[in-house]
């Protein structure tokens, strides 16, 4: 029983940290532009594919040693995807910045569709095997099985999240980004380079998403052009659950979501005496999301706003 508990906790932490990396991208973009970036899941997918491409070039053509090649591929891929993110913002979202709120959201849907089908055409629609970034060693801890891969993912995710935390709260760039997300007009009046800050967000968000994608692909051993869709939706759910726009909220939401999913799988059949099986796990997830939002309409750590303190004009 204890073994099972430890096992499930580790499982939840691993999934949760991948969700968190992606949820952060949603929440940062939302914080600055009040926009849901539906193409964010595709950054996750791109991360895996770009890393795979670089890796096969490094190992195949250059003949670089495994561990170094992996590190190089990881770093180069996340930076490349970050740049792609900035480029997409310039082309597809920037022209819509003063438009309705729905317009950039739908533009991002178009970007998402194009990236997925583009990748299907380029790399084929089939899932492709992805090499492991960490050697798989199993450790038995009090009856539970933990793999070195899970540990590696946890460490990598936490390093990245602390890096982001530092960037947002301690660095100059972070202050600028926070100022812009607080109030874009005011930041503009203060002479802040708003475009620069937005580009920064569209660099860091996809970068983290791509990192999540690489970790995910190497954890599960496969990648596919559509891999971003489901996990993107889950990360988005996590961001909303935690209170979209809030960075700690995104992380909290991601781990809560992961624990609900794992807990649902493990406990639903037990609690309901087999009436509801694990197939109802997503129902449970969404039901909990709805309940949380009923109590806290702006998510767990979202800014609670009273009616008059915020001028809500039309959403779109």
């Amino acid at each position: 029983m204890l073994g099972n508990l430890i096992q499930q906790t580790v499982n939840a932490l691993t999934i949760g940290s991948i969700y968190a990396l992606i949820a952060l991208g949603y929440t940062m973009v939302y914080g600055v532009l009040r926009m849901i970036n539906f193409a964010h899941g595709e950054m996750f997918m791109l991360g895996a594919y770009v890393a795979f491409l670089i890796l096969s070039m490094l190992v195949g053509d250059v003949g670089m040693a495994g561990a170094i090649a992996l590190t190089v591929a990881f770093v180069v891929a996340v930076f490349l995807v970050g740049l792609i993110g900035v480029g997409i913002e310039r082309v597809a979202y920037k022209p819509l910045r003063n438009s309705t709120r729905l317009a950039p959201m739908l533009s991002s849907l178009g970007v998402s569709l194009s990236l997925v089908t583009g990748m299907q055409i380029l790399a084929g629609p089939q899932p492709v095997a992805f090499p492991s970034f960490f050697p798989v060693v199993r450790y038995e801890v009090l009856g539970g099985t933990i793999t070195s891969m899970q540990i590696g993912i946890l460490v990598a995710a936490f390093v990245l999240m602390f890096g982001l935390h530092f960037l947002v709260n301690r660095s100059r760039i972070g202050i600028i980004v926070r100022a812009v997300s607080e109030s874009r007009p005011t930041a503009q009046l203060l002479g802040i380079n708003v475009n620069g800050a937005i580009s920064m967000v569209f660099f860091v968000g996809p970068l983290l998403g791509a990192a999540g994608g690489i970790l995910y692909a190497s954890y599960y051993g496969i990648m596919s052009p559509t891999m971003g869709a489901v996990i993107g939706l889950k990360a988005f759910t996590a961001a909303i659950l935690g209170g979209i726009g809030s960075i700690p909220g995104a992380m909290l939401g991601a781990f809560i979501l992961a624990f609900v999913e794992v807990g649902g799988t493990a406990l639903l059949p037990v609690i309901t005496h087999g009436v509801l099986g694990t197939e109802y796990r997503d129902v449970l997830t969404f039901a909990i999301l709805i309940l949380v939002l009923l109590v806290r309409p702006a998510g767990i750590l979202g800014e609670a706003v009273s009616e008059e303190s915020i001028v809500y004009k039309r959403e779109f």
Partner: protein
Amino acid sequence: MRKFIATLLLGASLFAGPAMAEQITIGLSAPLSGPQAYFGTTWHNGFKLYVDKLNADGGVNGVTVAYDQQDDKADPREGTLVAQKFCDNDKVVLGLVNFNSGVAQSTLPIYEDCSLPTMTFGSNPSLTKQGYKLMVRPVANDLAGALLPAEYALGKLGAKTALVVNDKQVFGQGISEIFAKNFQDGGGKVIDTISVAPSDVDFAAVLAQIKPKKPDVIYLGAVMPQLALFAKQMHEQGITATLIVPDGGYTPDLIKQAGEPNVQGTLVAIQVPPMDASPEIAEFAKLYKAKYGEDAGPYSIYGYVQGQILEQVLKTTKGLTREDINTALHAVKVKTAVGELEFDETGELKVAPSYLYKVEGSKFQLVGSK
């Protein structure tokens, strides 16, 4: 818009014009885009390979064969549009249709309404039980597909207990229910049935539930890439039960994506004989690779076999109308690459070959056939 009008006019002219007597068209419908595109494309390629050869030899009794290949996206709505397109085209006298039983469910009534005979590929047993007069299924249904593995598990592996996992999709759920029934009928015990979501990639939580139950075999009714993911995670979590999977796993991707050490001993049941089973199949594999630049897909050989059935139909048919073709199709008896085939009155194969493979190293080793 201009293109649309052009297509419109073209469609109208086809509709009105007289059909050419010496060429028939076969409608091909399967997923050609999206995650299942690989199966649809490679299946059709096998057929095209045979038909091209047939045409190169001057056709059958002077009749040449053209094909109209359409994407149904594995979506019932798209499937019905394609079905209607074939129905409207008088030159189409036979359909090689729908890889997915779910799509076939919605298209078969349309084909029935316009008297277009089909060779349906969907393997759900219920398709032939609805009284359709114009369909045959040139491939073993899931009843046969799940019998062999159950017998093997009970007999050769000496398994007493099985745990069944399905992905809550038509195919996965259907075939795993049939496996469970066969396993129980043979004296085994199914200790639990678990459903997972079709989009799941992480089975760690499910596996942690399975582990203490210690089943002898686990039957996983799902498709790729879930099969590979499950096998990999199962091994990583230290579960030693024998994994049995249905036909979707008969692809080198299973071994590649799961990682070679993680799938050793996994059993795969499929209606396809090994590529070196006979000189004819080996020859086909070579031809396929030469023509399409890649290895034949899991169902390519069935496309080829359907070409062989078509040839026999054309040899025996009285005329080239849909009705004539249908009569000939139901009466066909032909030696094909997978053995001699004929259909019963519901359109089901009288003898449906099925095979069981075991993963050894990076190869699928035949361990049983029926």
